[in-house]
């Protein structure tokens, strides 16, 4: 085994362990991580295997195939992250909006006598 293979396997293993330790994700996601890890280790230890797969798919070299997978993979990851951030933004917006409405300051004599509601800022 070459040195680079050792380094890469250790790297992949640390990533897997970090993922499994720090993210309490769904079982499905953890299985996906395991499969990805297995594939990565396979490709590192037996580099010729990637070429076999590449040839089967009509790609000349295994390294090229990996580049393609890497490129599409990062685009996919970016979209996934963007969606997550967008959802978080919506949650924050809703939260900030609710707080703003709850803590709104009504002018002192506003609606108290008109429709029997207490001004919002009297609560405190």
């Amino acid at each position, binding site marked *: 085994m070459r040195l680079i293979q050792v380094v890469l396997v250790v790297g992949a293993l640390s990533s897997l362990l970090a993922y499994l330790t720090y993210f309490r994700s769904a079982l499905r996601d953890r299985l996906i991580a395991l499969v990805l890890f297995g594939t990565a280790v396979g490709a590192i230890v037996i580099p010729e295997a990637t070429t076999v797969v590449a040839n089967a798919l009509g790609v000349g070299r295994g390294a090229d195939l990996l580049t393609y997978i890497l490129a599409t993979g990062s685009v996919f990851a970016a979209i996934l992250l963007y969606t997550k951030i967008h959802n978080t933004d919506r949650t924050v917006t809703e939260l900030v909006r609710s*707080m703003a409405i709850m*803590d709104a300051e009504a002018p002192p004599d506003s609606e108290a006598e008109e429709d029997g509601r207490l001004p919002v800022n009297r609560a405190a």
Partner: protein
Amino acid sequence: MQILSESQETGSDGRPADPGDVWIVVAAFNEVEVIRSVVETLQDADYRIVVVDDASTDGTGGQLRGTRAHVCRHAVNLGQGAALQTGIRYALMHGARYIVTFDADGQHRAADVPRLLEPLVDDRCDAVLGSRFTGDGRAVDIPAAKQLVLRLATIYTRFTVGIRVSDTHNGLRAFSCAAAKKLEITQNRMAHATEMLKLIRRHRMRFVEVPVVVYYTDYSLGKGQKMQNAFNIVWDCFTELFRRCA
């Protein structure tokens, strides 16, 4: 308070809306210099006012002390679209019958509000859009470049939203409470203007454009949307479209 029965014909005799039924929503971000005078001209007309202070850092909120405005404060800056949505929800919770959105930078005239309300009171429309480019509407001292961008925006809107209006980015608008309930602005930043038109179309609201006067002062030009925002707006709309497809 004047109570209008549902069957009563309110419009044909030209009776104006009861100001107590009208909520003016003002979204303000760092408008310390002008916010007080804007609110004062509105309260002189006896409208209910809610100012949404979008986490201003210049003491805009303090300027509202002693006015009759209700004040909602965003804990973090979310953008004009989000602030308008907060104000609209607040107004609806307080029994608004008509909701008017009004820019905080002093560009609009309170005197235009009754014209906007008229079609709503007559029940001819669900939404009324102020326009500086129709009828006797005017854009006083508008820079040529700004006018061009606004014209282009109307063409862009015609193709993307499928709505033909003469002024897409006018902050002065009015909605009936039923229409306002259907407005759910999710575009926090500036693309909400286009989003509102999309919502008007999606919910098949009856709308009309009413001529209004918009003043361009050195202040509003310094504060208002920068030209590069046009790009941001297109970008926001594009990503929204993308998410809808995905």
